[in-house]
């Protein structure tokens, strides 16, 4: 089998490899079942993966998860780990929406209690949660010292402002804060863009969803997480908003201008990078940490607004609602982690772009509550089908630097979606499935039509077949607020 002149070798039923050739530093590997291959070959995502395999200091493989699709620079679904001593850090390998991520929350409610109230609940979400393009105004506009606190303290800052509980931190990747954040690395433009966007959903694929658990795969783990069939859950998907976009843009610009001074060639300017240990590399990493913290504060506020909306709409007490964060994971980030490479422990800068961490049991990075079982992994599907909650595995630690896919993965362009579907058509189809959707921008709903995504169940099947994560429960959407 070949792609663009590169041979593709089958490693197992869910792992494929493009061997090292030419200037590639390492081979490229991607995770998929055989039936997913024709779709993956349709766009040029594998060429982007091969480009990543050229980067200096990359370890083991340039990897892509089963939701791989064409992006810019790195493919979406890409994972690449670089030696911190002689490897690089790349803003394009993290993406513009730094720490875009998703959180999964349980409630005490069951489907029967809310099934006739979904339109009212989605309307409540809309009233409480600023959404859509450039949305703002969830909380009063920050001043610079307050914004500095957000950048340095992440979710903890939000909790101190009354958004959530201290115990939420145990259920957030990195405990909701990257300590290396340095506000001195942030431009005035990024600061300006971030002043009024904490607690806003934004547009694109971001969402706030209420759903139910419709299938349980692992009774024991589900019980351990206090999850059961027909239980109502809430998911929030958002990121670092304009603040993060500006951080990425600022540093990419500097690194592109520095490209000619690097001792190696980069196959695409969007892969512009700096040595991790260089002054510019460190500055970007510290700025990225500020944006990651901003995103955690944002999702912490969004989750609390959703909780308040439910209490108000359903006229119930906080105790009756029993709202509890299960986990919050990042999709676009670079993290310093220790992994085994050829039997030796190495400190690596792991880039995940449209991919999530999926740490197995025992890792120190996981809170005590989950250390024994591994880290929960959330894989949202499109707004018309299912989403999944899984758990990280030892295999992921050995194979993929503890990484897994982040969602279903797009198959149709937004422009083609707009040519193919109408707003009413998408809304009606969702209604037929019993899903109430509210979209601030009509374009967003059409662009995010369920038919524009891969079947998330196929993606999850590939992940499970490869052993990167293990299914716990499946959820079904009932109501969705889109930006």
């Amino acid at each position, binding site marked *: 089998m070949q792609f663009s002149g590169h041979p593709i070798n089958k490693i197992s039923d869910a792992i494929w490899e493009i061997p090292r050739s030419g200037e590639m530093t390492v081979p490229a590997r991607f995770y998929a079942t055989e039936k997913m291959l024709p779709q993956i070959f349709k*766009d040029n*995502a594998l060429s982007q993966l091969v480009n990543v395999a050229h980067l200096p200091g990359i370890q083991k493989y340039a990897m892509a998860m089963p939701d791989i*699709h*064409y*992006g*810019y*620079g790195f493919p*979406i679904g890409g994972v690449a780990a670089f030696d911190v001593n002689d490897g690089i850090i790349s803003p*394009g390998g993290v*993406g*513009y*929406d730094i720490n875009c991520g998703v959180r999964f929350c349980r409630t005490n409610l069951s489907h029967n209690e809310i099934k006739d109230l979904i339109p009212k609940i989605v309307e409540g979400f809309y009233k409480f949660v600023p959404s859509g*393009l*450039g949305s703002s105004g969830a909380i009063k506009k920050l001043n610079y010292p307050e914004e500095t606190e957000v950048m340095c303290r992440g979710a903890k800052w939000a909790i101190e402002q009354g958004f959530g509980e201290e115990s939420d931190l145990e259920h957030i990747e990195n405990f909701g804060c990257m300590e290396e954040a340095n506000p001195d690395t942030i431009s005035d*433009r990024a600061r*300006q*863009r971030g002043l009024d966007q904490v607690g806003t959903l*934004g*547009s*694109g694929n971001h969402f706030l969803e209420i759903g139910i658990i419709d299938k349980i795969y692992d009774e024991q783990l589900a019980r351990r997480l206090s999850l059961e069939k027909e239980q109502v859950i809430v998911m929030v998907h958002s990121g670092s908003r*304009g603040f993060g*976009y*500006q951080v*990425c*843009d600022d540093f*990419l*610009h500097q690194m*592109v*201008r520095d490209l*000619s001074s690097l001792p190696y060639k980069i196959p*695409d*300017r*969007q892969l*512009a990078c700096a040595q991790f240990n260089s002054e510019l590399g460190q500055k970007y990493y510290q700025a990225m940490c500020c944006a990651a913290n901003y995103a955690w504060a944002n999702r912490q506020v969004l989750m609390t607004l959703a909780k308040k909306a439910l209490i108000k709409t359903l006229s119930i007490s906080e105790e009756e609602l029993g709202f509890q964060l299960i986990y919050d994971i990042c999709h676009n980030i670079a993290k310093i982690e220790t992994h085994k490479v050829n039997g030796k422990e190495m400190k690596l800068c792991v880039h995940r772009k449209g991919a999530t961490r999926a740490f197995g049991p025992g890792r120190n990075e996981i809170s005590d509550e989950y250390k024994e079982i591994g880290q929960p992994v959330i894989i949202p599907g499109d707004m018309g089908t299912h989403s999944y909650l899984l758990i990280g595995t030892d295999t992921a630690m050995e194979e993929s630097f503890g990484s897994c896919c982040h969602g279903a993965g*797009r*198959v*149709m*362009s*937004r*422009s*083609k979606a707009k040519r193919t579907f109408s707003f009413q058509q998408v809304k009606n189809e969702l209604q037929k499935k019993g899903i109430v959707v509210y979209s601030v*921008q009509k*374009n967003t709903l059409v662009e995010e039509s369920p038919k524009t995504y891969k079947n998330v169940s196929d993606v999850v099947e590939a992940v499970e077949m490869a052993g990167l994560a293990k299914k716990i429960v499946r959820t079904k959407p009932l109501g969705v607020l889109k930006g």
Partner: protein
Amino acid sequence: MNYKIIDHTADLAVEFYGKTIAELFENSAVSLSEIIYEKKMSVSEDKNFKLNFTSDNIEVNYIDFLREILYNINQNFYYFYKCKATLLSETSLSIKCWYSKFKKDDINNEIKAVTYHECEIKSKVIYGHKMYYAKVTFDI
């Protein structure tokens, strides 16, 4: 035709056109405004500012110019209706941009960022005329 939207799986790819490189820069800023606002806006102001770019590479200057245009659309809600570019050398140019200020609600399509991904400025013959074009991928 000043631009054409190209299918891109996850984001937005656009091909911009101009009879000269200067016109390519000019058309790109105005076209980007039209894409984001989803229509030609009727303008009532005559405000302008000047941008200067220098780098080893025309494509880098081009993307950096679009980054400035996009920042001003997203942050200040400017709609650019006219630009005048002057090429000072192969690696340096100056551009005057005329804009009118609108409101956030007038924007219909969010574009988060301009990427450098595979951007090249090239020429081809379209309907018998030599045209310069650049394909740009935007993050949305």
